[in-house]
């Protein structure tokens, strides 16, 4: 097959695929989120940050981040706490985690 055919089919396929996808995504807007469009005044670049800080979900992170940032004088953006994890996975119950946590620090077994 010659290169022109490949190029023509290639460019067409890329556009066809992505245009199809964009049609699907336009449907998304009507199916999933008709009333959710809000337009806050975008004053700062931190478009993401306010959402995190003000949503109830983000509170705990914001507090931890701010606390560490405040106590060290570094900007909150320059580091992250990688390992605050939600309890979950493989259904291990909470007492399992607490137990493991205790042993992780002390290398000893907390009797439960």
């Amino acid at each position, binding site marked *: *097959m010659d*290169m*022109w055919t*490949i*190029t023509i*089919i*290639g*460019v067409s*396929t*890329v*556009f*066809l*695929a*992505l*245009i*199809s*996808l*964009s*049609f*699907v*995504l*336009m449907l*998304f*807007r009507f199916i*999933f*989120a008709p009333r*959710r*469009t*809000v*337009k*806050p005044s*975008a004053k*700062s*670049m931190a*478009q*993401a940050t306010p959402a995190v800080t003000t949503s109830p979900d983000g509170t705990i992170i914001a507090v931890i981040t701010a606390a560490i940032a405040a106590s060290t004088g570094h900007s909150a953006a320059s580091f992250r706490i990688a390992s605050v*994890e*939600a309890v*979950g*996975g*493989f259904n291990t119950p909470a007492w399992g985690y607490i137990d493991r946590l205790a042993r992780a620090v002390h290398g000893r077994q907390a009797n439960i």
Partner: protein
Amino acid sequence: MWQNILEFLQSTGFAGFADSTMMIGGFIPGELIMLLVALLLLYLGIAKKFEPLLLVPIGFGMLLVNLPLGGIMTPPVGKDTAGLVWYLYQGVKLGIYPPLIFMGVGSMTDFGPLIANPKSLLLGAAAQLGIFVTFIGANFMGFEMKAAASIGIIGGADGPTAIYLTSKLYPDLLPAIAIAAYSYMALVPIIQPPIMKLLTTKKERMIVMDQLRDVSKTEKIIFPIVVTILCGLLLPSAVPLLGSLMLGNLFRETGVTARLSDTAQNALINILTIFLGVAVGATASADKFLQLETLKIIGLGLAAFSVGTAGGILLGKLMNVLSGGKINPLIGSAGVSAVPMAARVSQVVGQKENPGNFLLMHAMGPNVAGVIGSAIAAGVMITFLG
């Protein structure tokens, strides 16, 4: 015993230089040149911070394979075991590492800005122009078609895609293509701005775009599934790359598979990045790498990035006109991928004209669309040439 000592000395790498299969100018062993190239790569990765997660392992792999007689890439012969990196290389050769790395990339990628602005996808498509123009250019420069396709994919600005395609079509070019791809990705802040300024007017660059709508969790969950089915049906050969990317993204978005997402984007991607980088670097033996082709590839790679940038910008201009001036064409250049570097470049260039302009989130849409776009382009190449 003196005989033994002599034999031992002949087993050293210093002596190995003398047996080099490639003497440049008749007396400089190719391996020596390659060691210098490896040092240059390490320098770029470490001191210049050019995609260090890839260029440091690649550079080190290149260094190891060019220590004469080290045998780190020797295949197994009879009952003799192979060299260490030969084993690691099988994951590249069999097409295993790049899709799994893509899974990690997927679990690091937020498609929210793309879902919020579906038109981004067109820009992500336009920026793949660099792939195809370079493919044609490489054909004209005398590369055979499989090699030309592998070279063209550099314009996809996406490492795993480039390595996956090249390992399928023309493994001999792996190191040159990987190095060119990652180097130019690192150089995006230098390559793109002049092109962006040349092709846009000051007025266009100052356009402030509408705030993106909120994207619900449900949309983010459905998106990777839809992409997999739609693109997978259209182009079956793109399934390994796109499917893995989308699986990783699904792990990220479900809210109930955080463990898997976390491992995909940390332990797993890091382990495979080390293996892939060292293995790709170790394919750079002197006789394969010290060829005129390598220079041509580096030149063509630059063209690929430039054309891709231009493609995105020009479609951005057109869309701006059609939308009545609501689209800043600068976000088009982000369509080449190089996530999130190219999107940051859009932000920086835009902010220079209009300090209150925040294009980053708008540019993230074309940026992640470009990843999908180049995976599809790679799928087309595999369908025809694989």
